[in-house]
């Protein structure tokens, strides 16, 4: 939850973006705090890059406002905004060497030559490219180009750095290394980073907060642990990490506990805010799903062990339920595996099952909440 | 707010300027066409609409001869350069030797050197072998400057070929010739047609080389007009020119259409993949 003393760096208010009749961002509300590493995460076409480009000023908002430090930036061109972008394909000027590329922004600001030289030196040191001043972009590796792009943006001392899938073109190993370096850099500089990616693992490792987007809608915003452990929607649960999702029906509402029935049996979850006879989803992460040969209290889900897959650090077991649904279960290598084809009972720690409203229920709740908020906004 | 945004996007100069350039390019062409329908003999004022020049032009023997020559040269040079060029392009595709590079680079010579030099070189050559300028020399010269364009166009079509298709044809029992007729040729046909269109327009468009190659009996329509301009031109020339303009435009549009079809079929293919 947002702390009151945190200063809001960028505020998006009811931002819409349309291309013709195609609405790619739908009434987006987002507060980005000073000094935080915020990731916009979502599948391709979810509107995350468009959002970033609206903040940078490359795209105009169709409706709504964007505030940078409380100031509406609608009429400000990209070159008048205190934000800089690291582009997906680096967008280094091919005819300029490393030094000229990095110095570009300062030259435009008519900063004095010795000052430029000093600051370019600083930047090169920071991104560990000393001695490469005279190289052309074409003579550099992907990782090096990436560093130049970052240095070129940061030398202008922007209040916010926007990064559009900056590591997408790098190979896995280099990407891991750059993730670490970027995070480190951000901590050191204390600048707000807004990072766009479709790689959920990248988002989880680097971010202070993640904003998950889907089809132009902000699905959930929160710290990585929150997003992973308490997904707010089915989409988030499905998109972040692996998960088993069941359609279910609220059978019984007890104090802090809810009894549900699935197609393949019955189960119980710790949850509140649901009402009897509601259609729900229940999500359980593979590492939280457990199997036992013996019956378990409060749970009655039966299946058959179909397959064991060894995937390095853990074992993965596939269990087929009576209705044909397949579940993924991960166990530590030291846990003994049940033999293939054996009948098993499935269960989970009641706190680890995540209960979600279905879309219809969500809309219903949303309307209810909006009424509440607007009613409460007067004081 | 929305209106302001719309106004920002609308820049009159980005519409006005291209229109002016197009006007500059098309006005002389339109003038030629408009005066072909003029009742007055003089190309000064439009006095009234008539199509009589489109009939009168048939009576002008010299003009008709020149027009016929233009068409004959265009036809023969296109056919011959397409046959030779296509064979060459297919042959080059299979060839793996130094000759390939030699031919590929010598193909660019006629494209690069100034036309006037090319024209006089052929003139000097023909006169040294005692071949007087005639329809024959005209056709030879047009083949020579069309040939490289045909080879290049067809080659670019073959470049995307999967060599195993030809191997498959051979494997299924087709000989070299049958493979060419049944597999290679149908596949490169769009390239052959656009190469042919190019050769045809190049031939109709040429002035400089034809100028040196045409004999008194084998002048082409453009050269005839060049000779007439200073003495004064009658509107039947406009009528014939209009036909040539429309013909060229038709050829261009046709080859654009084929180009469009090729792209579409390529997209369809990549869609399957």
């Amino acid at each position, binding site marked *: 939850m947002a702390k009151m003393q945190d200063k809001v760096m960028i505020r998006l208010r009811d931002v819409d973006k349309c291309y013709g009749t195609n609405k790619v961002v739908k009434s987006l509300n987002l507060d980005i705090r000073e000094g935080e590493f915020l990731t916009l995460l979502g599948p391709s076409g979810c509107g995350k890059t468009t959002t970033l480009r609206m903040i940078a000023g490359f795209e105009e908002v169709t409706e709504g406002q964007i505030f940078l430090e409380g100031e509406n930036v609608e009429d400000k061109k990209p*070159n008048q905004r205190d934000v800089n972008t690291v582009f997906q394909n680096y967008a280094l000027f091919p005819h300029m060497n490393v030094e000229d590329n990095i110095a570009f922004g300062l030259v435009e600001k008519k900063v004095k030559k010795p000052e430029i030289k000093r600051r370019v030196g600083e930047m090169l040191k920071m991104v560990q490219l000393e001695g490469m001043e005279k190289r052309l972009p074409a003579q550099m590796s992907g990782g090096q180009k990436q560093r130049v792009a970052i240095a070129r943006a940061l030398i202008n001392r922007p209040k916010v750095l926007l990064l559009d899938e900056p590591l997408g073109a790098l190979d896995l190993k280099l990407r891991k290394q750059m993730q670490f370096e970027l995070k480190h850099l951000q901590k050191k500089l204390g600048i707000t980073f807004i990072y766009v990616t479709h790689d959920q693992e990248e988002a989880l490792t680097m971010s202070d907060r993640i904003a998950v987007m889907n089809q132009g809608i902000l699905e959930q915003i929160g710290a990585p642990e929150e997003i992973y452990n308490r997904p707010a929607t089915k989409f988030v649960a499905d998109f972040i990490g692996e998960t088993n999702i069941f359609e279910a029906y609220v059978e019984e509402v007890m104090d802090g506990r809810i009894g549900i029935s699935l197609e393949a049996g019955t189960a119980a979850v710790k949850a509140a805010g649901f009402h009897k006879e509601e259609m729900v989803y229940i999500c359980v992460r593979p590492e939280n799903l457990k199997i036992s040969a013996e019956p378990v209290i409060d749970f009655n889900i039966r299946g058959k062990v179909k397959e064991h897959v060894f995937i390095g650090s853990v074992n993965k077991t596939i269990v087929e339920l009576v209705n044909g649904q397949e579940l993924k279960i991960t166990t530590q290598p030291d846990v003994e595996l049940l033999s293939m084809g054996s009948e098993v009972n499935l269960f989970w720690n009641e706190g680890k099952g995540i209960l979600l409203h279905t879309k219809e229920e969500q809309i219903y709740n949303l309307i209810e909440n909006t009424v509440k908020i607007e009613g409460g906004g007067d004081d | 707010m929305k209106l302001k945004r719309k106004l920002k996007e609308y820049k009159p100069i*980005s519409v006005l*300027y291209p229109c002016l350039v197009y006007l500059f390019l098309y006005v002389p062409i339109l003038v030629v066409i408009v005066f072909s329908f003029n009742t007055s003999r003089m190309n000064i004022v439009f006095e009234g609409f008539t199509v009589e020049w489109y009939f009168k032009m048939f009576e002008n023997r010299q003009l008709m001869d020149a027009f016929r020559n233009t068409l004959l040269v265009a036809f023969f040079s296109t056919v011959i350069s397409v046959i030779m060029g296509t064979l060459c392009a297919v042959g080059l595709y299979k060839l793996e030797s130094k000759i390939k590079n030699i031919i590929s680079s010598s193909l660019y010579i006629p494209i690069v050197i100034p036309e006037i030099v090319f024209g006089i070189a052929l003139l000097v050559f023909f006169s040294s072998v005692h071949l007087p300028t005639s329809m024959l020399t005209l056709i030879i010269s047009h083949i020579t400057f069309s040939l490289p364009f045909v080879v290049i166009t067809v080659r670019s079509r073959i470049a995307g070929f999967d060599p195993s298709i030809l191997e498959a044809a051979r494997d299924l029992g087709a000989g070299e010739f049958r493979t060419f007729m049944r597999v290679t040729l149908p596949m490169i046909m769009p390239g052959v047609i656009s190469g042919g269109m190019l050769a045809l327009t190049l031939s109709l468009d040429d002035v400089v080389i034809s100028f040196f190659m045409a004999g008194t009996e084998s002048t082409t329509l453009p050269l005839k007009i060049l000779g007439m301009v200073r003495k004064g031109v009658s509107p039947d020339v406009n009528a014939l020119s209009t036909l040539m303009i429309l013909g060229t435009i038709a050829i261009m549009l046709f080859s654009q259409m084929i180009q469009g079809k090729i792209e579409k079929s390529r997209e369809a293919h990549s869609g399957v993949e």
Partner: protein
Amino acid sequence: MIKKLGKKLPTIVMIGPTFFWLILFVLIPLCYVIGISFLTKNAYGGVDGILSLQSYKDLFQSEYLKIFTGSLWLSLQTTILCLIIGYPFAYLIAKAPANRKKYMVLMIMLPFWINSIIRIYGWNTLLRTEGVINHLLIALGIISKPLEMLYTDGAVLLGMVYDLLPFTILPLYTSIEKIDTSLLEAARDLGATKRSTFMKIILPLTMPGIFAGSIQTFIPSLGLFYISEMMGGGKTMYIGNLIKNQFLSARNWPLGAALSIILIIITLILMKLYTRVGSLEDMA
């Protein structure tokens, strides 16, 4: 051995005709021109087999030098005018919406393929002393006496620009279109104004296109003798007319050949420069 030949025979049949055609009608004639430029002319308008550098020496006569400088100046003016008119135009096409772009390019190509004598004849009709423009201007009362427009140096320049403009625009368009828009966004993002984005990014990156367009305008402009005849009335002599006359009327073949060699050398130098610019671009 025979078997090997049999295997190669189809390829020989395919490539052979073009190969020999190019040797016979391109390489040999060009060698003839080179050879003749080192021979001497005889009194009957033919060539004597006496080796000499006379024709190259003749090139330095002041009347020829004047024609050279005049031609180069005209070609330079043509090229620069084409660039000035063509660059903004190419830029606007490159930035036009994709569906409109196709037609805009096609509309540039169309006149380019129509025989240029017919098009120049159109100008001739417009510009003549008793032509369309003069008639219109008098009828509108703007002028009382017809203007001398045709058969002037200005008319020649107009004809040249008109004929060669598409040659300039197409390479410019290709190079402008190739620029990655994210580069322009990056420049704006780093604080560059529109003007400095153009000067520092667009212009340097389209340099190869500017160069290609210039060459494709400059080289043919040297040989377009018929434009100076149709638009200039042959009043001013240019290198193209000079070469043409050496072969058709003056019958000084060695001199004409030497002039052609000069043209080829100019072409080769420009091509060399161009490939250098091109390779610079590839590196980037």
